[in-house]
C-alpha cells in the first residue's frame, strides 16, 4: 500500500507487520513516535503484542532479553541517552545470543541538551556484538526494520540488530512509503536456546576463561557469517518486494575519481552534490555506508575519498574515516560535519569534494573552513 509517513511511523509499521510477542520501551525524543504508534496498534488491536511500558531504557533492554529468552519475537526503540543508559544490557543481549531488533534514532549526547541528529550514540555501541545498519530514507527505514528480524533470527546469526535512522532529519520527515504484505517472509519465531523447563539449563552462569573465550569467538564467527545472511535476505527481499539493498548504496561510482562516503541522510544529500559536481565535469560518486557492523569490504582503490563523519572519537578522529583508513589503506579527506544537527547542504558537500585535502581532517564551519 502506498502512503506517506515519517521515518518513525515507517519503523512502527514494519514492527506491526513483524508481529513481535513483546515490545518493551521507554520514550525519548526523537524516537517517542515509534513507541507511541506501537502502543496505539496494541491498544486498537491492530497488533497482538504485549507492550511493557518500562521505567527506563536499562529495563527496556532487560525486559527484551527476558522476553526473547522466553521464546518470543521482541522489539524496542531508543535514542542517544537512552541507548547509553541501556549500554550494559546492549552487551548482554548480544552475549546471550538473542535476536532482538531495536530502532535507534540517532541523536547527539549531552551536555548541553541537544535532540538533533548525530551518530556518536550508535558508534559508541559498535563493540557490543550488535549488527548495525543505517538507513537514508523513510522507505528504507521500513524495509530495513523488516529485514532486521529475519537476519537476527537466522540460526547462522542469532545476534541482535540495531536499525539506525537520523533524528528529525529522517525520524520526523514525511516521504512516500510503500508497505507490503509480508506473507511468509518472516517465519514463525524460533529460538533454539529458548528457556525450556523440561530441559533445565543455566544461562550465563560463571564461565571460566577457556569457555568464555570460545563464546566470544562464536559471536565473531556469526558476525562473519552474517555478511552472507544479510546478502541472502536482501536478495530475497528484492525478489519478493522489488527493492534492492546492499552493504552500501553506490551512486555514480563506476567511473568516479572521487567518492564521498557518508552515513544516513547525509549520504542521500551527497547524491545531490554528486549531480552538481558531475554537471561541472568533476567525476564524483557517492557511497552511502549502510551496514557498519559487520563492516563491509569496500572497493575504493585508485580514487580520492572524502569521508563525512557525523560523529567523533575524541583524541583520535572520525569513526567512519578511521574505519575506511584501516579497511582500505586509503588516507581519506576527513570532514567532521553535522554534529548536534548542524545543517549540511549538498552545496557544502560539493565544496568538501572541490576543496579536498586527502590525509587531512577538518571540522566543517568550526576549524579552518574548506
Amino acid at each position, binding site marked *: 500500500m502506498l502512503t506517506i509517513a515519517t521515518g518513525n511511523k515507517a519503523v512502527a509499521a514494519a514492527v506491526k507487520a513483524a508481529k513481535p*510477542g513483546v515490545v518493551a520501551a521507554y520514550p525519548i525524543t526523537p524516537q517517542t513516535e515509534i513507541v507511541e504508534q506501537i502502543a496505539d496498534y496494541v491498544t486498537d488491536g491492530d497488533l497482538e503484542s504485549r507492550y511493557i511500558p518500562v521505567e527506563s531504557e536499562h529495563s527496556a533492554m532487560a525486559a527484551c532479553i527476558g522476553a526473547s*529468552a*522466553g521464546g518470543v519475537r521482541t522489539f524496542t526503540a531508543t535514542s542517544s541517552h537512552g541507548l547509553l543508559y541501556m549500554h550494559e544490557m546492549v552487551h548482554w543481549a548480544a552475549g546471550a545470543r538473542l535476536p532482538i531488533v531495536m530502532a535507534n534514532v540517532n541523536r547527539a549526547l549531552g551536555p548541553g541538551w541537544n535532540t538533533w541528529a548525530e551518530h556518536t550514540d550508535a558508534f559508541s555501541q559498535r563493540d557490543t556484538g550488535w549488527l548495525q545498519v543505517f538507513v537514508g530514507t523513510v522507505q528504507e527505514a521500513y524495509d530495513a526494520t523488516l529485514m532486521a528480524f529475519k537476519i537476527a533470527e537466522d540460526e547462522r546469526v542469532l545476534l541482535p540488530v540495531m536499525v539506525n535512522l537520523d533524528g528529525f532529519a529522517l525520524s520526523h520527515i514525511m516521504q512516500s512509503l510503500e508497505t507490503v504484505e509480508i506473507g511468509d517472509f518472516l517465519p514463525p519465531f524460533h529460538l533454539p536456546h529458548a528457556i525450556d523447563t523440561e530441559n533445565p539449563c543455566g544461562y550465563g552462569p560463571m564461565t571460566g576463561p577457556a569457555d568464555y573465550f570460545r563464546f566470544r569467538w562464536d559471536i565473531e564467527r556469526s558476525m562473519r557469517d552474517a555478511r552472507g545472511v544479510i546478502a541472502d535476505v536482501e536478495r530475497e527481499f528484492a525478489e519478493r518486494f522489488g527493492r534492492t539493498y546492499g552493504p552500501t548504496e553506490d551512486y555514480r561510482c563506476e567511473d568516479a575519481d572521487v567518492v564521498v562516503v557518508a552515513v544516513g541522510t547525509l549520504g542521500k544529500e551527497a547524491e545531490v552534490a554528486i549531480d552538481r559536481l558531475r554537471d561541472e565535469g568533476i567525476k564524483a560518486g557517492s557511497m552511502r555506508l549502510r551496514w557498519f557492523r559487520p563492516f563491509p569490504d569496500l572497493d575504493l582503490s585508485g580514487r580520492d575519498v572524502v569521508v563525512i563523519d557525523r560523529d567523533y572519537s575524541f583524541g583520535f578522529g572520525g569513526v567512519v574515516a578511521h574505519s575506511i583508513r584501516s579497511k582500505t589503506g586509503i588516507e581519506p579527506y576527513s570532514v567532521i560535519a553535522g554534529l548536534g544537527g548542524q545543517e549540511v547542504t549538498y552545496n557544502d558537500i560539493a565544496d568538501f569534494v572541490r576543496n579536498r585535502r586527502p590525509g587531512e581532517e577538518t571540522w566543517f564551519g568550526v576549524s579552518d573552513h574548506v
Partner: protein
Amino acid sequence: MSGNRIAKLSLQLMTIIEERSVNNLSAIPKEEYLYKCTSACAGCSSSLCLRYVLKAAGPDSVLVVPACCTSVIQGMYPGTAMNVPVYNIAFAAAAACASGMSDAFATLGRETNVIVYAGDGGTVDIGIQALSGAFERGTNFLYICYDNEAYGNTGMQRSGSTPLGARTTTTPGGKPTAKKDLDRIVEAHNPPYMATACSAYPLDLYKKVKKALSIEGPKFIHILAPCPPGWRYPTEKTVEMGKLAVKTAQWILYEREFGKLTINGPSKAAMKKPAPLEDYIKSQGRFKNLSPEIFDLMRQQVEQNIQRLSREEAGVC
C-alpha cells in the same frame, strides 16, 4: 454452578488440604531442584532457603538471578547445581528481565513460574528501580530477596540493607545509618501478596512461596538470611542465628495478603515478649564493640517495629 467456579472451589479445597498436610517438614516434597554440588560457603542460609523455594515452586519454574551470591552458588559453566532453568542477568536488571519473561510466557500461553532470587544489594540498592517498575506495572512474578545485610559476593561491603552499627569492610567503624526499610517501600506498591521469612523457619517459607505462586500479579518475599562469614559467627550457628533474630523480634515474620496483615507463628510470641536483644547482638562479630547509644537506638527500632505491626494487625493505624 459453572465449570469455572467448580474448578476454583476445588483448587481452594486442595490448597486447604495441602496447607493442613504441610505442617511438618516431612510433608515437603522429596524432589530436589538444588543439588548438593553448590559452591556455597559452609553454613550458607541463602542456599538452604533456595532449596525450599524450589521445592515449593516445582519444576515448571524459571529462576532469574542478578549478580549476587547465587550467581556463584549455582556453580560454573558447563555445570549447574539447579534442576530448573536459571537465567543470569545484570545486577540492576532482575525485575525487568523477569517482566519480559513473564509477558513472553503469557503470550505463549505458558504458566511457568517466574521467580527472581536476588540478594539485598541487587534489591534495595542497584535493583530497586527495576523492582519498583515491575511492581507498579503489575507484573505476574514472584520477587524473593534473600537478605544477608551486605554485599556478600564481593566480600561483605555495606549495602542499604546493612543494619545500624554493623561492621562491614566499607563500614569498619560500624554503619552509621539505619537499615533501609525495604518492606515499607514494597508495601507502597500495594502488591497482592508480600511476606517476610527467615531461613531458620523453612516450613513457613515453603508455605509462603506456595501461597505467593497461587496468586496472580507481583508477589514479594523478603527472607532474612544469616551469613557466617559476613556476620562473623561459627558456621554451625546459622539456624540458631535466624531463630534469635525472630525471637528477639529483630526480624518479624508476617504476610500481607491483599493488604491484610497476619503475624506468623513464632513472631506472635516474640512480639509480646521479645528475647533480650543482647543475645542476638553479642553472638555476632559484626556488632563487636557496639556503643551503648547505638544499642539503645537498635532496641528502640525493634520496639517501634513491634508497635507499628501490632497496630496494623489490630486495625489501629
